[in-house]
């Protein structure tokens, strides 16, 4: 890479890496260390293709890479966990005194990986349905249904625990 391309990559990192790390943290539902490792892997890929993609929306490419990596990692973790420990019991919702934020985040982590990615992209990243569909390589209809099901699960669980309407 030329010096100018290296500089442009540094600027890209300075502007976007925290946002990518936050998205990865939310989508993979795991530790900050896992999210950081995942983002490093994704950014290495961005770096590898940087001369080609830098003028063609590298942010979207990086986000897509991070999100797909997070989904994949969540699934692998699930497979390994099932093999080693068999399926863990679906724990009851937290105690009624748990505040709304914790209940929402707990429920978010319980969603299947792809559904969680849809919810994060739509309601954290403010991506449109079409943008979310393009990023995940699925139809707009799938995004709509996954988002609706994700929110419905949260509503139902939280409503049952808190006796509130949100």
């Amino acid at each position, binding site marked *: 890479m030329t010096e100018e391309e290296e500089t442009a*990559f*540094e600027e890209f*990192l300075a502007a976007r*890496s*925290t946002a*990518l*790390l*936050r998205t990865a*943290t*939310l989508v993979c539902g795991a530790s*900050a260390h896992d*999210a*950081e490792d*995942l*983002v*490093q*892997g*994704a*950014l*290495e*890929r961005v*770096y*590898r*293709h940087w001369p*080609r993609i830098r003028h063609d929306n590298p942010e979207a490419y990086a986000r*897509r*890479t*991070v999100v*797909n*990596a*997070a*989904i*994949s*990692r969540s699934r*692998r973790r*699930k497979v*390994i966990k*099932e*093999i*080693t*420990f*068999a399926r863990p019991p679906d724990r009851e919702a937290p105690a009624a005194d748990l505040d*709304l*934020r914790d209940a*929402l*985040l707990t429920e*978010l982590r319980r969603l*299947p990986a792809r559904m969680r990615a849809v*919810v*994060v992209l739509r*309601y*954290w990243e403010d991506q449109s349905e079409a943008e979310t569909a393009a990023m995940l*390589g*699925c139809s707009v209809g*799938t995004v709509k249904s996954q988002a609706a099901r994700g*929110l419905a699960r*949260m*509503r139902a669980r*939280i409503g049952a625990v808190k006796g509130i309407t*949100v």
Partner: protein
Amino acid sequence: MNVEDALKEAMAAQVADVHASPSLGQAVRRRHRRRLARHRAAGAAAVTVVVAGAIPAYGLLNSGPASTAGFGGSGIGTSVIPTTPPAGPDAKPMPGRSADGEPPATLPWDAESGAPEGAATPPPEGSPGDPTQAPPAGEPAVDLPQELGDLGDGRTFAGIHVGYLPEGLVWGEWSGKDGFGKSSATTSWMRPGDEPGSYIVQIIVFEGEAGERMKESLKAYRGHEDATPVKVRGARGVIANLGEGSEVTAEGTPTILWTIGEDIVVEAMMSPATKEGLGSEATERELKKIANGVRLAR
């Protein structure tokens, strides 16, 4: 406040303290250098295999990008499988060949580049076949279960022998027992250099209680409108894309289930990322070839 707004607030609070490290750029470049070094070594090993000769060329099922031979690439159209077809309909497939004598499929992208240069969309980062997810050299690998011990090439386990796998796969060096019900066993295969624990092909063998349960599932899947009933060496089977809850869904993992012998149900799956690269039809063909190559080993 509606649930969307509440959720957004919760997510914002959750990641408010998350900031990228100032040394992230250094870490990315270090990772990149390690990756280059790792693949230079892998490339050298593969070249040695080609130079050793005795490698008949085949028309490959999928013309992937130019790549390193021996890692599933098709750039020079070579394969290390033997040329002589099986002797008859009952002959066991030769190592590396399907039961119908077809050469093994080449995986849709190679371990070196991850995707053809210039392709519009590289394969999903972090997919099971994504080499960038491999742990850097010198870092500890994932602690994977080894419940069936050392299986060698992994092809003989739990009473079956796997005669056919797509070209270039190696045993994933792990195995699990009873994780999918009592008397079930599983292991998987990946490409050299893939992240430990990832898979291109995974097979689960169900017997006993687990076998009985899976016979019922097999019957149910065969009646599902989005599943494809098939015969595997005369036995009932089905191909379906199964989701995380074992439901049939277009976005699920491509899976073939069939019975072998009286009491065994076998499930073979290919990773969704592999299906993305191969396409649905080729993936189904591969699943059928894998299934047709499985024999009882008792």
